[in-house]
């Protein structure tokens, strides 16, 4: 927004720049600091004596002989079985994203092309479902899942996450399909295609921008989820986030807290990379609902 007429005074410019710098520090410094600290020993990063140790690496030098150590990483990934947790996370994420996109595109396409009244009510119901705190749903799942003996395994969690994810995916893809001109598939219908064929040959080739955005959000939900995975999976099948929490709980082991620090960095890094690549899609996804909605 560069106004030709709008002259900003220098004072305002300086103030603006300072504000942005301070905000970015607040937003990013905790992550940079954790990244830095994950290569130290516990006595440095959580120093009782002097916080400066975290920078000068006093104890890290004493214990390992170097300024930086990757001990926390190697221990967490092997001894702490973080490799298992990350494998589980990958399984859950891949399945949740693909299934919820498959269900979501079909449903949202139908919603966007329906002129009936119930389509509106379905969208409202989805909005209400979106507002449900996940923990209240989990308290509904636990008992039946115990009785059916499907508690603790990955497939159950995947299905649950897909379902929890549907309302948001539906809304997102609904507003995306609304921007795809109706005439496109209507002409195919006139030419004798069935609705499914129109979807397959006309809509599918043009829907990828919307699908990528929806996929990113499903991925973030599945990857980041704590409530569902912590309560519906057994120890063996824990994904990364509940695993991090379990490192916190067992504090008697000296290395454990550092395991948590390195696990946090390991879990966050891929997510940051992904968002860096797809920043535009994330932002467009967050705003479609708001601007057009």
């Amino acid at each position, binding site marked *: 927004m560069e106004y030709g*007429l*709008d002259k*900003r005074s220098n004072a305002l410019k300086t103030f*603006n720049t300072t504000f*942005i710098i301070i905000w*970015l520090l607040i*937003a*990013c410094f905790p*992550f940079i*600091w*954790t990244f830095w600290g994950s290569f130290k020993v516990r006595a440095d990063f959580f*120093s*009782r004596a*002097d*916080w400066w140790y975290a920078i000068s690496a006093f104890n890290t030098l004493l214990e390992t002989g170097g300024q930086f150590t990757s001990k926390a990483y190697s221990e967490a990934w092997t001894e702490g079985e973080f490799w298992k947790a990350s494998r589980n996370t990958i399984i859950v994420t891949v399945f949740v994203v693909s299934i919820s996109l498959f*269900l979501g595109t*079909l*449903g949202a*396409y*139908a*919603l966007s*092309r*329906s002129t009936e009244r119930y*389509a509106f009510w379905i969208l409202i119901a989805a909005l*209400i*479902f979106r*507002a449900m*705190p*996940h*923990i*209240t*749903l989990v*308290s*509904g*799942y*636990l*008992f039946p899942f115990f009785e059916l003996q499907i508690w603790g395994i990955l497939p159950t969690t995947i*299905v649950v996450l*897909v379902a*929890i994810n549907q*309302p948001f995916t539906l809304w997102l893809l609904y507003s995306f399909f609304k921007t795809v001109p109706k005439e496109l598939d209507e002409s195919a219908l006139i030419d004798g295609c069935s*609705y499914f064929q129109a979807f397959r040959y006309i809509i599918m080739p043009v829907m990828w921008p919307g699908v990528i955005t929806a996929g990113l959000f499903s991925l*973030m939900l599945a*990857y*980041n*989820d704590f*409530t569902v995975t912590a*309560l519906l999976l057994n120890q063996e099948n824990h994904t990364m*986030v509940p695993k991090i*929490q379990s490192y916190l709980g067992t504090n008697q082991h000296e290395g454990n807290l550092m395991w*948590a*620090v390195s696990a946090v960095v390991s*879990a966050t890094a891929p*997510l940051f990379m992904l*968002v*860096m690549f797809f*920043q535009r899609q*994330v932002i467009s996804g967050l*705003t479609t609902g*708001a601007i057009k909605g």
Partner: protein
Amino acid sequence: MPNKTFFWFFLPTGLAMILFIGLPIISTGIQSFYAQHDQVVKEVKKCDPFGCTVSIVVDQEATSILRDEKPLGKFNGFGTYIDRNHLAIEQISDFWKETDSFGEFINQVTNLPFYKALLFTLTYCLFVTPNVLLLGFIIALSLNAISRKIRGPLIFGTILPMIVTPLVGSLVLFWMIDAEGIIGANLQLMMEDPYLSLKSSRTLTWITIIIYGIWHHSPFAFVVFYAALQTVPQEPVEAAIIDGASRYQRIRHIVLPHIYPVVTFVALISLMDNFRVFEPIIGFSAEGSAQSLSWLIYDNLVNEEVILFGSAAATSMMTIIGIAILLAPVLIRTWKEFRTAR
């Protein structure tokens, strides 16, 4: 689209939502009327040369048979809702009779688990939501004035707090704010109080969690406001400049009215998200002084001995009612708009 085609297209997603969102809510409702079984006790007569004693022991066998027969527990009606851990009707009426001043009464009531959690949840919503809107809007305005070339990386930095999961976000902050972390240690030095720490006072804990909430949610408000700012038409703004409107007046009378619908959207979403605050309490290990409704449910569900399904379900139902109250104005408005649109 014909109804039949719509049905087949919508069936998979509809089924998923009914089975795993609709039914669980019903299941929660049913569970909330049941409570876990009491342990079956039996009297055991033990005789020795000095006489007989009767002691009461838990009949493990009978208890487990009872549990297997009726896994849901015993029917309790609204009993769970009004017990001490939930609405605590009895306790409140006692407090009302016993306490002398209103302040003391409120003090007693907010010490009951449910009201304590409700108080924290509402305080959190009340402080976080407006501040998120404000901070998000200021960041959006401010970034919007920065040269377009360097905005990309700046936006990336700004949205970082939002994309990490709340547990990780709160841990990362906690490790800095804690007494052994960089900020906590420096605060101790500055205040010259070696015992100052996050856990030392309830107020400090609440403030920390609220600050975390603002930090975590502001990027979302920022993103939406930033996108909305791009759609503000230029002509009225330029006209206002020519007419001599100050920067504040331009924002107040042109920009804000234009993005008003977006503001309500962000307020609603962040209110909904804040109402279910839960992970930061675990991240900050603040269970001692800050408990939210969601945390109460979690605590019941991870109970060591017996999972308190009934208790968790009752709290869940009341949380859902809370959400319904929050959503009601929006739903009513949508309904009215829908009616007039027809």
